[in-house]
């Protein structure tokens, strides 16, 4: 996403990039970044905690307004939990420290649409048929 931020900014659109992976963001070096020390998969907060999520976003927008030099990363004051032990073994994939899985826990890279619900597939296929009919 840092690469995309650079392209947008080049084209005249200011950006603020949230990130839960500080080292990757340092490498890609986007114009404005806000680091949240959260497990991967929870970039904009803990589920079903709207005030936590709003607080995180307010801090990100505040950081956006304060950053005045390209390539800055602001560490946002948000805490996943009092227990930091999720960081011990966290990698990408399902093994994000909240879950614990051995080996390469990413899913196989299949080249077919991966629907959340079977009914989504039906809806998408019906839309395509409608498009073809017109």
């Amino acid at each position, binding site marked *: 996403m840092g690469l995309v931020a650079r*392209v947008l900014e080049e084209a005249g659109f200011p950006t603020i990039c949230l990130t839960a992976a500080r080292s990757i963001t340092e490498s890609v070096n986007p114009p404005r970044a806000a680091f949240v020390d959260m497990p991967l998969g929870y970039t904009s907060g803990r*589920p079903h905690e709207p005030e936590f999520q709003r607080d995180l976003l307010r801090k990100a927008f505040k950081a956006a307004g304060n950053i005045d030099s390209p390539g800055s990363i602001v560490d946002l004051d948000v805490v996943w939990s009092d227990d930091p032990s999720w960081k011990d073994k966290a990698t990408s994939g399902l093994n994000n420290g909240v879950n614990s899985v051995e080996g390469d826990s990413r899913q196989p890279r299949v080249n077919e649409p991966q629907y959340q619900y079977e009914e989504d597939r039906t809806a998408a296929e019906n839309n395509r048929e409608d498009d073809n009919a017109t």
Partner: protein
Amino acid sequence: MSLTDPVDYIQRTREQYARLGYDDYRWAEKKEIPPWTPIKKPISESNVALLASGGAYTKGQVAFHWEDDTGVRIIPSSEPASDVRVTHFAYDLEPAREDPNIVFPTDRLHELVAEKTIGSLATNSVACMGGIYSSRRAEEELAPLILESIANMPGAPVDLVLLVPV
């Protein structure tokens, strides 16, 4: 590593790939000073667009596939998070399917408009897939599609883009 430090995913991935016998991954590295567009309006008056790479789509759209899908899905901002689906190969989908706002915070952004933290939410949000293996393809295929959706946003022009990767 101290548990107060951020997790170094580049180092962890290197160790994990070595254990699995994979070649080292070459992360995109940009050393030059990034491009920069100043924020022209107070954020409380800015029209903000959401761009999220958690693989969101909405009912009726073709879902992303998991082999370097460099497409985008345009999701009307009027769509509540409860109608947003997510699909991705590289993170735990279960919590995000329970509450899509943790990777696609559309409900929260509407609330930030109501409390005047931001001025407005752009007509559409833009969703894509993170984890495109080739940074060249992310730059040459994905980035232009995203730029087009932001630059040609219906309604008020975009003043600020909020990027939410996973």
